[in-house]
């Protein structure tokens, strides 16, 4: 669409020149004295005027150049081969696993993997400094764990020499920051680095260090996506991991629903990499010191251990002796053991009762489950209203509206919901209810009280249908039921046993632990993909804004053309 105006201007220019008279005009005061024998030249369209006019060709050329400039501007920027240079992006792994001690059997005995990484970094900077003096070198050092952060950058040889010292400062941060590893971020960073500048939007073309190489210093084996960059051979995956034995706590779990936890048993999963020690022992003790229990660990026969806890509270689990990776040997958990749920069943059908592991009572119930009868009054205790149930149907239900982040819809497949027929409720009769899931007739399939109501209540289509042969109906009815029970029983929802360190809370404290998956895997190691010494200068493609050059040429030609027009006036046409 942008080209149309320029094309129209070109056509207009041609027409203008066709219209140009093939004579020069003079305005003279003596015009009336001239003989009247000749007629004025006509101003008809003349091809001759067009083809013999130098200004026409100049102006047409300017238009064509302007058109070309516009096309170049809309196209990705062209690339020109730059001078040989080295621009290195160094991604240094600072995740928790980098604190793993190297095996005693190697020369790196006593060092952590991070310190080994610094050695590699020193080799890399030494190699860069050994390159020719007149070579332009720039280095950007970034760290990564769960995020990628800039550490420093260097553009001179002296600055490059300080890189290792600056990176070694990060070693101290392991006392305050123990995080996992997100290699997806690394992959994204590398892909973006290797995108040719010509394929980047103009606004995103970096004006800083033009990267020609990426070096990743990590203890993780090179992922499959590294092969994407094999052709370019400019990605150095420098692995500092050495195989070492380690044992640790993998995870701690508890049985039961998040709102119906009544089990006192927790399950501890242990992990072992390499040769485990024979004298391992798992100790769990309450933080208040009132209870403690320990068991020897048999690594060959058993990896999960279950403990029955005496009461709610915080417990600390310790695996001894510690492995070479220290951050998976201890975890603190918080356990909230609920009393058995007391339910008042206000309907004969009590399907779903086994799911609740509840005690049926008439007084003092924690939850009442009663049929929905057109209208509800705000109840005094958490209440679940049950509709007419689910029916298999060829017509199904067409959904129109749902609350995307509602916990009442957790784990629900809305596509399977449309396969069932559900009698929705008319919310016009119940203004206190909010629709969570609504069909195309405007009837609510699932509705709930406002979440800030003093006592929560919800309406669902039916109880879990244990009698159906339709797996979809069975699953859907059960999940909707349990979601609704947990939602109305908001006070019984328990917190996770523990959480993992994060950017917001990078250091383990309380129930925040460092049991990041795979961080303790000290056996999964790989070799470096490329030797540092193979890093050589390359001629990087630099974006070349051809549109700008053409635009300048257009401006120059226009200026010359206008100058000629001013100088020669009417003769310049």
């Amino acid at each position, binding site marked *: 669409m942008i080209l149309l105006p320029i094309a129209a201007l070109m056509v207009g220019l041609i027409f203008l020149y066709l219209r140009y*008279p*093939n*004579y*020069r*005009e*003079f*305005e*003279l*005061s*003596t*015009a*009336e*004295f*001239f*003989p*009247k024998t*000749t*007629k*004025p*030249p006509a101003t008809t369209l003349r091809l001759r005027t067009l083809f013999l006019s130098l200004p026409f060709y100049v102006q047409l050329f300017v238009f064509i150049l302007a058109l070309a400039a516009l096309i170049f501007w809309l196209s990705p920027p062209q690339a020109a081969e730059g001078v040989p240079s080295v621009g290195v992006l160094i991604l240094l792994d600072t995740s928790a696993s980098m604190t793993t001690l190297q095996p005693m059997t190697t020369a790196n005995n006593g060092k952590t993997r991070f310190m080994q990484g610094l050695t590699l970094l020193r080799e890399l900077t030494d190699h860069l400094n050994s390159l020719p003096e007149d070579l332009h070198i720039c280095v950007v050092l970034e760290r990564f764990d769960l995020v990628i952060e800039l550490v420093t950058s260097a553009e001179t040889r002296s600055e490059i020499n300080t890189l290792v010292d600056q990176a070694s400062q990060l070693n101290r941060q392991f006392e305050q920051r123990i995080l996992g590893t997100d290699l997806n971020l690394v992959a994204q960073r590398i892909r973006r680095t290797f995108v040719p500048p010509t394929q980047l939007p103009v606004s995103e073309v970096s004006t800083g260090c033009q990267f020609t190489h990426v070096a990743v210093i990590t203890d993780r084996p090179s992922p499959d996506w590294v092969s994407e960059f094999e052709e370019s051979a400019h990605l150095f995956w420098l692995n500092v991991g050495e195989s070492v034995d380690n044992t640790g706590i993998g995870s701690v779990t508890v049985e039961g629903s998040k709102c119906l936890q009544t089990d006192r048993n927790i399950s501890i999963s242990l992990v072992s990499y390499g040769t485990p020690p024979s004298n391992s022992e798992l100790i769990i003790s309450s933080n208040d010191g009132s209870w403690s229990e320990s068991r020897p660990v048999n690594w060959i026969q058993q990896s999960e251990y279950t403990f029955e806890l005496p009461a709610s509270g915080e417990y600390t689990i310790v695996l001894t002796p510690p492995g070479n990776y220290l951050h998976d040997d201890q975890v603190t958990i918080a356990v909230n053991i609920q009393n058995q749920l007391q339910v008042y069943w206000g309907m004969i059908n009590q399907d779903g009762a086994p799911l609740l592991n509840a005690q049926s009572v008439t007084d003092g119930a924690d939850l009442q489950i009663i049929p929905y009868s057109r209208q509800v009054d705000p109840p005094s205790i958490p209440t679940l209203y049950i509709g007419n149930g689910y029916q298999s149907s060829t017509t199904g239900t067409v959904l129109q509206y749902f609350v995307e982040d509602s916990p009442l819809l957790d784990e629900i497949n809305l596509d399977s919901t449309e396969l069932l027929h559900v009698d929705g409720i008319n919310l016009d009769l119940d203004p206190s209810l909010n629709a969570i899931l609504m069909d195309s007739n405007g009837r609510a399939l699932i509705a709930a009280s406002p979440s800030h109501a003093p006592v929560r209540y919800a309406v669902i289509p039916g109880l879990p249908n244990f009698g159906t042969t339709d797996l979809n109906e069975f699953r859907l009815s059960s999940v909707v039921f349990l979601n609704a029970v947990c939602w109305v029983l908001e006070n019984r929802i328990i917190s996770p046993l523990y959480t993992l360190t994060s950017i917001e809370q990078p250091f383990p404290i309380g129930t925040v632990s460092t049991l990041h998956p795979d961080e303790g895997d000290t056996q999964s190691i790989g070799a470096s993909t490329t030797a540092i010494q193979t890093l050589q200068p390359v001629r990087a493609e630099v974006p070349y804004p051809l549109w700008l050059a053409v635009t300048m040429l257009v401006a120059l030609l226009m200026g010359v053309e206008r100058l000629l027009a*001013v100088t020669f*006036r*009417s*003769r310049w046409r």
Partner: protein
Amino acid sequence: MFAPFPDDFFVDTYFNAINRQTYPLSIGGHLHRKQGDSLDFLDYKLYTPGDDIRHIDWRVSLTRRPIALPTEQWIVRRYEAEEQLRIVISMDTGNTMGYPRLKSNPRLCISKLQIARWIIHLITSIATRTRDQVIVHGLFGNTFSAEFVSSRGGAVGLSTMLDQLTMTPIMRTHETLQLRALDSILKPAAIWIILSDLYFPTSNNDPSTDIQELLLNRIAEAKRNRCLVVLIDLNAWNYERGLLTDAIKSKTRAVRISGMSTLGIPVDNKLDLMSNIIAETETSIEQRKYQFTQLSTSYNPYWQWDLPQELGTLHDAAAFFKTRFSQDPILAELFRKDS
């Protein structure tokens, strides 16, 4: 848009050049066309309308009269006196006075009108110093237009007057010819300066509507009233002829001439044709002006200003103006003390 007077210092330069000495607060001390009231007798002259009847020497008239006593034979005594000069400048604002036009900068028009404005400006500046009267009169116009732009009070409203006169070109017809306005301002013994290119249309059929005829008659009448008539012919033919000649040299295939009429001339390899046309045109112009050039006498000068071919810029025009003005003896004589 017209350019201002290019060089205000030129007035001083001009004064020095003509060795002029001014006398503030005194009446003009220069060329006198009117008898004075002093007792210094100068000579006799024949009576002309407008003479003060009190100066008629009845006795001499009576003794010298031949047979009858026609008024032409009255004898008037002349006295030596210095009197204030009245200069009436009739400015032609007809269509052709707007040429030549500077196409490279149309807003700045170095035209005959521009030169005329500068002439008026300069004469007015001088007259202001000598405390003479200057009246600017529009020779053509839809209404009568004449104003004092210089009097004993100094120059007043000249630019405004000129802007009004030159705002729009006027068609030259006998109806727009404003000669009657002169009756009240062109006093006997005044100096009447006519600024024009003299391209007045002719009408052979009816002398009463022929502009040339009407103007020639008025000039004759002015002369009878002892007015000094100065014809300044602002002639751009040389300039315009140069344009055409350049066109021929630059291999222009044809020229289109527009102005008061529009016509085209093929030029391609037809140099002779173009030369003939130019010669024929030049003859037509000379014929048109012939009667005016014949008026030229030592006391009623015809002053031709030929605009040069090099009139390409404002600077060129200003240089031409100052040189041409300095070279001409008529106005210098007019303002010279001893004249």
